[in-house]
């Protein structure tokens, strides 16, 4: 009799612990996703800035020294923000895509510096497409 009563009785402490743990886990996941989207928006902002400046340089609308400094700042911001992304396997693909964005920016800048504008233009098209794809897949489009 006694054992039956005990078995039927709810276990408040373990339930509370479990629900608290579940709540915290869900909250941390949501927080991680929010943080990821916010960082992705910032990364895409700097990528778009680099693209704007490189396109302007391609049209000889801005001087080389300004382009170099501004692109250097964009790349630094992208790397800094990427390092703040959650280091879990869930976001590994996004991190790989960000590295690709950074390489494309560096490649376009390098090609412009060497005077190979055709190649630079192709890199910039690829950069734009990659950014659009990353914006869509990461949910950073709003």
């Amino acid at each position, binding site marked *: 009799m006694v054992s039956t009563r005990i078995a039927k009785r709810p276990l408040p402490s373990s339930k509370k612990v479990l629900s608290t743990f579940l709540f915290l886990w869900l909250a941390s996941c949501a927080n991680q996703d929010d943080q990821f989207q916010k960082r992705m928006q910032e990364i895409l902002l700097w990528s778009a*800035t680099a*693209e*704007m400046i490189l396109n302007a340089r391609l049209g000889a609308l801005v001087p080389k020294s300004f382009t170099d400094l501004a692109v250097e700042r964009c790349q630094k911001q992208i790397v800094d923000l990427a390092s703040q992304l959650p280091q879990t396997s869930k976001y590994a693909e996004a991190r790989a895509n960000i590295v690709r964005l950074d390489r494309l920016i560096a490649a376009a800048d390098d090609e412009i510096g060497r005077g190979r504008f055709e190649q630079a233009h192709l890199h910039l098209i690829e950069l734009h497409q990659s950014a659009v794809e990353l914006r869509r897949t990461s949910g950073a489009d709003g």
Partner: protein
Amino acid sequence: MRKLLQISLGIITSVGGFVETGQIATSSQAGAAYGFSLLWAVVVGTVCLIFLIEMSGRFAIASHHTVANGVRERFGSNYFILTLLIISIVNLLVLASEIGGRCAGIAIRERCKFSVVGLAGCFHGVASALERYFRHHRERCRYFGVGGALFVVGALVMDPPWAEVVKGFVPTLPHKDPLHYGFIAISILGAIISPFLFLFYSSGAIEEKWDGSFFTANRVIATIGMTFGAVISIAILVLAAIVYPPLGINDIEGYDQIAPILTPALGKWGFYLFAASLGITCFGAALEASLAQAYMVAQGFGWNWSEDAKPRPIRPSLSPIPVSSASQSCRSQLDSIHFN
């Protein structure tokens, strides 16, 4: 004829103080993030500023005293010192941002790192503000606002969707991030309503010896001058709304991003003209903020102040003055000053 000339100069001076680094930054941020929907904030800020400027001018004409004099006389020395402290902090922040803006202008134009020109820019700004002959600079800073007219040309060349622009003058709720929207709206108001503008204006009215015949001229200068300034701010916001969102840039975090704002409209020249107008407008605003601060201190303590007054030679003193007796002396000096 003299009055017409003074009205014209007053309008240009007003524009010179209105357009500065804070204006350029906040208008660009608003345009990039929310398109034309924050244009109403510029209008609200401008209307408030027109009233403040007009009232300070009217006060100066009617009482033959500046705003600083009036505050001290009406509310006493304690209240004046508190006001002076608060306005000094605000002016210091404004001055720092203007020097920063001027440095950014030089850095963009001279093609070197911001940090390299930072120190030089600071020295240049401070030295300029402390120039012995204020008159020389005051005359020059009248014309600095004209640099902002480039933004209006740029906005017209870009041919914005006018129906959307007109809708932006009606306050609406944002489609995203209301907190950020509110922050930008308040930033726009803060950038427009700077205390140095009306302090400088009332000092100007006294220096130019405005009398009762200048009441109408005062209204005209306050209204047209600030409206011209607002048109430049609106042009920057419109340009940002046209240029940035299609490129995926919906936030502005530095002058690197703002620098090419005129290139779609004006091509290669747009970049250099932006750098020049940023430097020029910030220099003009830095001078006005410095002069307004110096004037306010001098007016409040009853010292001689004027762009025409020659500075008294400084006699070095070796005996240190105790802080308490210096403070007591200031207080008694303030209390003894009254309107004539």
